[in-house]
């Protein structure tokens, strides 16, 4: 069989995709296999499905809709502290749910800062509970991610294009139409799908801020099937439903995103001639300030309430922090070993199935993956011996969709730009990867690694199913502290977690950009 000439083989990427799909679908099958005949789906499950899709769609629309102007403003402006701000903006995404909710409530809650301020002028406190509360929290979680992903799209438009457009006399509106809209059409559907899928599996946020049982999501229904009824068949069925929904969203996103990239540039610093007017400056400043206030105030609340507890953190918290760092490092490594080959395989035109396999990680219920792995491991070994490895691998798979969104566009453009050249130089395989691919993708790899490390640091996920008392990750330790009423120490531990996650993100993301961006 004649093979198309390719600078690198797609085989390892295809293998990685198969491994990921096998993990997610295999654990689902393990749960089904272990299940006795269940009751099937009831009317309440369908209600949960409807609510889930509705809130996830709204959350995705708002998160991405708001992220576009914010990303545009950040793309057009260079200011002191910009990089720090972009780093900080990533923080909400990686917080454990309970920490983020308590942070949000300090700002938006009944006794929160806004309601207190409103009280001074005699206005009723705002009510955060309900569908709008769910959407607010989901925007808080996902606006930063959406902003970063879209911002990356902007940065991938070569500076030469803007220069050319400016020389041809294009004004802001023309540049938007000619350069930015095509980029957005390419990037936005994927971001929408990712955010939709994240919100699909939300459960504690939706329940707590949704205000009651009306805000039942599929994930809560899975929880109920597992914990309340011990109906594994129903849990698996619901989990399958969740996977199908995410798969559908990913498929639609792949079909809708159009455009082929912008060709090569010389990686010059982007300068925008259309953004110099005072009006444009004011608009951009407005968006940046609004986003910063929305995202940073709750984080500040976490810092304020956590600082007193930070002074005498129990030793167990420090130990848990070290465990978390180890898990995050392992998870990041696993992620890169999976994501890079997959991104290259997609860039080589083996898209579709690989990308969908990558997105499945978003839809898989940690409870079902954990239970499935438990069923698989238990006959042979003590599952708690595998707690940390399993956590690292599952976290990597959960971060995979984000990593692919980050890596694929750049991998595509590298292969498109340098593939033929390197082939003509007979520089295929490893030398291509080492000399061309990795250096050109350094920034994206750093971003993806940073995100994976931070996500893994904050994940409660499967560890709760596997851990014994000698190893706990930091998020689990926070819950244990709260369970023992030690709210102040828990707040301190939460602040430590915030610091560690952001630190991991910053180091890796910055490491990727070292000397790469002026």
């Amino acid at each position, binding site marked *: 069989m004649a093979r198309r000439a390719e600078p690198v083989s797609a085989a390892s990427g295809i293998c990685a995709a198969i491994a990921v799909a096998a993990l997610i679908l295999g654990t689902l099958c393990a749960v089904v296999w*272990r299940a006795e005949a269940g009751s099937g789906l009831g009317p*309440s499950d369908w209600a949960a499905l409807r609510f889930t899709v509705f809130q996830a769609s709204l959350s995705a629309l708002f998160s991405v809709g708001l992220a576009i102007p914010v990303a545009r403003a950040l793309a057009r402006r260079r200011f002191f502290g910009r990089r720090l701000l972009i780093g900080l903006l990533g923080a909400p995404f990686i917080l454990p749910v*309970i920490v983020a*909710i*308590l942070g949000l*409530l*300090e700002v938006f*809650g*009944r*006794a929160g800062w806004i309601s207190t301020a409103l009280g001074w002028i005699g206005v009723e406190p705002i009510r955060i*509970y309900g569908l709008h509360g769910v959407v607010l929290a989901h925007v808080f979680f996902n606006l930063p991610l959406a902003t970063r992903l879209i911002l990356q799209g902007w940065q991938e438009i070569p500076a030469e294009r803007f220069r050319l457009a400016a020389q041809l006399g294009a004004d802001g509106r023309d540049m938007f139409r000619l350069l930015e809209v095509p980029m957005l059409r390419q990037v936005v559907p994927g971001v929408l799908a990712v955010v939709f899928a994240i919100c699909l599996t939300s*459960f*504690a946020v939706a*329940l*707590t*801020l*949704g*205000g*009651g*049982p*009306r805000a039942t999501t599929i994930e*809560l229904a899975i*929880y*109920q099937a*597992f*914990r*309340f009824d*011990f109906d594994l068949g129903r849990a698996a069925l619901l989990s399958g439903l969740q996977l199908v929904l995410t798969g559908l969203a990913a498929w639609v996103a792949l079909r809708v995103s159009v455009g082929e990239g912008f060709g090569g540039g010389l990686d010059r610093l982007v300068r925008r001639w259309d953004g110099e007017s005072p009006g444009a400056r004011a608009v951009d400043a407005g968006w940046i300030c609004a986003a910063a206030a929305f995202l940073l105030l709750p984080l500040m609340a976490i810092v304020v309430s956590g600082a007193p507890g930070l002074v005498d953190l*129990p*030793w*167990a918290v420090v130990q848990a922090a070290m465990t978390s760092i180890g898990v995050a490092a392992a998870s990041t490594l696993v992620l890169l070993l999976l994501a890079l080959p997959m991104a290259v395989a997609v860039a080589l035109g083996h898209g579709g199935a690989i990308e969908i396999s990558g997105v499945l990680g978003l839809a898989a219920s940690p409870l079902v993956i954990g*239970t499935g792995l*438990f*069923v698989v491991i*238990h*006959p042979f070994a*003590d599952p*708690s011996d595998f707690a940390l490895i399993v956590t690292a691998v599952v976290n990597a798979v959960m971060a995979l969709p984000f990593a692919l969104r980050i890596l694929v566009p750049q991998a595509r453009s590298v292969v498109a730009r340098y593939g033929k050249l390197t082939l003509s130089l007979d520089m295929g395989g490893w030398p291509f990867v080492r000399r061309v691919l990795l250096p050109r993708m350094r920034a994206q790899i750093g971003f993806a690694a940073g995100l994976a490390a931070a996500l893994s640091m904050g994940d409660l996920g499967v560890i*709760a*199913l596997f*851990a*014994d*008392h*000698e190893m706990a990750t930091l998020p*689990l*330790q926070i*819950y*244990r*502290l*709260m*369970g*023992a*009423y*030690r*709210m102040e120490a828990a707040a301190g531990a939460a602040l430590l977690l915030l610091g560690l996650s952001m630190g991991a993100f910053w180091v890796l993301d910055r490491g990727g950009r070292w000397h790469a961006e002026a």
Partner: protein
Amino acid sequence: MKHLAFAAGLLSATAAYAETPELTVYTYDSFVSDWGPGPAVEKAFEDVCGCDLKLVGAGDGAALLARVKLEGARSDADIVLGLDTNLTAAAAETGLFAVHDVRADYALPVSWEDPLFVPYDWGYFAFVHNADADAPTDFKALGASDKRIVIQDPRSSTPGLGLLLWVKAAYGDEAPAIWEGLADNVVTVTKGWSEAYGLFLEGEADMVLSYTTSPAYHLIAEEDASKAAASFSEGHYMQVEVAGKLAASDQPELADQFLAFMVSDAFQSIIPTTNWMYPAVTPAAGLPDGFDTLVTPEKSLLLPASEAAAVRDVALGEWLGALSQ
């Protein structure tokens, strides 16, 4: 450090290590945490048993039962500690638990006869509020008041399920009406106890579903008398926490020894200020100072295990119906 100690033990004395029998106890997370009873219990039992006590945390009570069901007869656990009476019927139904022969002079407000499960502590569910605010004295008054409450979802947490059965035990067929009265007081429903208690401390609600013993924590550990539990005239539903021996245990004698130890003074005196519940057998030294300030309900409500299991699904339906309006 524990890993290091473990490795050193393996290298130097593998034979000696293998001779020490190991007793595995599955329990809930807050029991094994450094601030829970786990570390003290482990030390106290290892002092007398010549064994290695391994405590394994597995979520909360409901998750614990799910895990045992999942593992079936091949479970590594010898003891399961941390089920409550709302779960024991389902646990007994699995056929995984063995009969015990523990006898003790229980300090429970109800008589205790269960062939499979031994109680180790108990408490009353109650709405905790700030001590300086007045509190309603029953569910009807709570429903009629403008107090804002946070409760837990019965589908994902043990206290949530306890509240469901509390209303059902107190009002029976009237329960849906009580829930309709409460619906506009419920600020929100959370996944578990931690979220709910956190919201209450943040000032999001006037009252939170917790235990009559919760104020004891604030009083004893934080010297803070600002929290109180509301006393309800229709009585308070009890949570009795129990442990049972698995029939498939490979250490049946050691397991029996543990169950007997569990109702002894050494274990029971650890419970009040680590698990913040009442001990099942009053320790010789009595209850710690501060426990005398707690609300003592006039009436203790507890559905028998079999009835609780039967009522559960009906009560959930009523709860969902009332709160989903």
